[in-house]
């Protein structure tokens, strides 16, 4: 039932702090995680036996694996105090008018219809663990592009699905990949056939709505030879007083001569644990790019990775992290050079304010015989006040000599001279700081689709004014 958000939470206005009455939900599993729940999830989805087995195997691995001893503080995370599966409405709708009223209202407030009209080819809307609405523009469908939710892909494209699923991130990869593998629900499945170029970004929205709700979407993207796609994901969530867990897995295969860019703006409310495993493999002469914006959540641990498998592959990751009060952004990037003549670039910009903690954690690894590789990493961090904290933890492992690997990082506060200059032109200190911070992250923001760039800049402004978070 609807609750008075302000009195419930008492943390001041949160821009996206609204939610829908939860008695609209069709089905919600009981709290906690065990074999019975996993079987229930698989049954409700009507999955083939192999997927049920896969989930159960992953659950075993999840229970066996220890919690990580590095990164953020996961001490308050209680796995048994979370709902792992909620289905919000039956089936997939095609038209906005058919979507249930309050869900539509939610998306109206997020501004989807305009975005749909102007920029998007298709929208997959995830509402509480399952995809409720999607529309795929006809021409994409004619080109053979598959853009659907992962649950449907398992049913409608079983061979294609099975060929790639969990090959990039096996269940045993880490504890949270195992968790996702056991309880995954929703997420996007994209297949772009050979030579097909999609000129506009494909998007999806996510929300966490119910108390103690977890989000476990599983995304799989296959870009066939010579094709290209840009996928954008952005999410918001209301503020609640109990914890929330978001543990997604994203696997991407970029084949020879193909291109893929995956953009994320994450703005989870400040009680969410956002623990994500994202990994791409890039084949000969292909390009893979991660654009990763981390603005929200209580704790984010996320290190998008690119494995450069064949000569000519190129990987690039642009990462922004903003850690405000009570937040810890532990993010970064991983590049693994498995073949000669591959190159990688990581640009990370982080800001910590009001006691927030921003940590860059990354890996550049060059395997033996990966000759003529180049890698360049630049990490810049701004600390805006004495109570905040910034860390940099880069790992560089080089097993081949015919390479060029460079890494540099710096941490500082806003330069006095810059501030003084702007203030002498009539800006207040807050406005000046805000402008400098916006300039600081500009190289990344300019890579975002327009409405994200606008949203990002607006959020930064609000953070700088201290009126959010």
């Amino acid at each position, binding site marked *: 039932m609807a609750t008075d958000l302000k009195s419930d939470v008492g943390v001041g206005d949160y821009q996206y702090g609204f939610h829908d009455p939860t008695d609209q939900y069709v089905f919600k599993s009981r709290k906690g995680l065990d074999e019975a729940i996993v079987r229930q999830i698989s049954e409700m989805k009507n999955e083939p036996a192999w997927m049920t087995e896969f989930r159960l195997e992953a659950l075993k691995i999840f229970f066996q694996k220890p919690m990580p001893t590095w990164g953020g503080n996961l001490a308050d995370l209680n796995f048994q105090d979370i709902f792992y599966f909620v289905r919000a409405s039956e089936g997939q709708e095609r038209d906005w008018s058919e979507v249930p009223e309050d869900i539509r209202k939610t998306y109206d407030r997020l501004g989807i219809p305009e975005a749909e009209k102007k920029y998007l080819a298709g929208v997959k809307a995830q509402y509480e663990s399952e995809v409720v609405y999607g529309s795929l523009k006809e021409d994409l469908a004619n080109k053979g592009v598959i853009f659907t939710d992962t649950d449907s892909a398992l049913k409608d494209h079983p061979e294609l699905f099975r060929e790639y699923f969990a090959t990039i*991130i*096996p269940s045993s990869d880490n504890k949270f990949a195992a968790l996702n593998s056991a309880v995954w629900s929703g997420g996007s499945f994209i297949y772009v056939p050979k030579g097909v170029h999609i000129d506009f970004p494909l998007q999806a929205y996510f929300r966490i709505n119910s108390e103690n709700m977890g989000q476990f979407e599983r995304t799989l993207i296959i870009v066939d030879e010579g094709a290209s796609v840009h996928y954008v994901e952005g999410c918001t969530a209301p503020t609640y007083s109990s914890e929330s867990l978001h543990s997604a897995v994203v696997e991407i295969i970029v084949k020879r001569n193909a291109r893929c860019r995956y953009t994320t703006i994450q703005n989870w409310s400040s009680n969410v644990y956002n623990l994500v495993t994202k*990994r791409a493999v890039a084949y000969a002469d292909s390009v893979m790019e991660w654009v990763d914006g981390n603005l929200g959540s209580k704790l984010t641990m996320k290190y998008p990775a690119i494995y450069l498998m064949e000569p000519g592959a190129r990987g690039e990751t642009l990462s922004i992290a903003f850690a405000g009060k009570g937040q810890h952004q532990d993010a970064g990037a991983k590049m693994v050079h498995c073949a000669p003549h591959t190159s990688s670039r990581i640009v990370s910009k982080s800001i910590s304010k009001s006691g927030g903690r921003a940590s860059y954690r990354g890996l550049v690894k060059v395997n033996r015989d990966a000759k003529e590789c180049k890698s360049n990493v630049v990490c810049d961090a701004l600390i805006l006040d004495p109570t905040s904290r910034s860390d940099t933890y880069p790992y560089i492992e080089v097993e081949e000599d015919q390479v060029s690997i460079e890494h540099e990082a710096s941490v500082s506060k806003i330069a006095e001279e810059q501030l003084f200059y702007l203030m002498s032109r009539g800006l207040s200190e807050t406005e000046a700081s805000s402008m400098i911070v916006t300039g600081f992250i500009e190289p990344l923001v300019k890579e975002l689709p327009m409405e994200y760039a606008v949203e990002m800049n607006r959020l930064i402004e609000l953070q700088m004014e201290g009126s959010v978070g």
Partner: protein
Amino acid sequence: MPDFEEIARVDEIPPGGRKSVIIDETPALLLRVGDAFYAIEDVCTHDGQPLTDGPLQGCEITCPRHGARFDIRTGKPLCMPATEPVRTFEIEVRGNVVFARPRD
């Protein structure tokens, strides 16, 4: 190339068993599959930590930490997140004694 060095007795390792040994000053894992012996460097090429306790299925050893699998006969990595082969050693069994030495 260094000589063969004695690393174990055949009767101290049952089929399916293993022994931690040092070959050419390198920590290695001697494994017995049926009556055949294989030795690999005891380091997972993914995270640089030991493979010592990894479960063995046929001729495939799985790293206990992130699930990387290796063929112990060739060292070849079989799945993510491993991308590099693990080093293998040459084995010779003379009577009841197992000898090993690094490959070229």
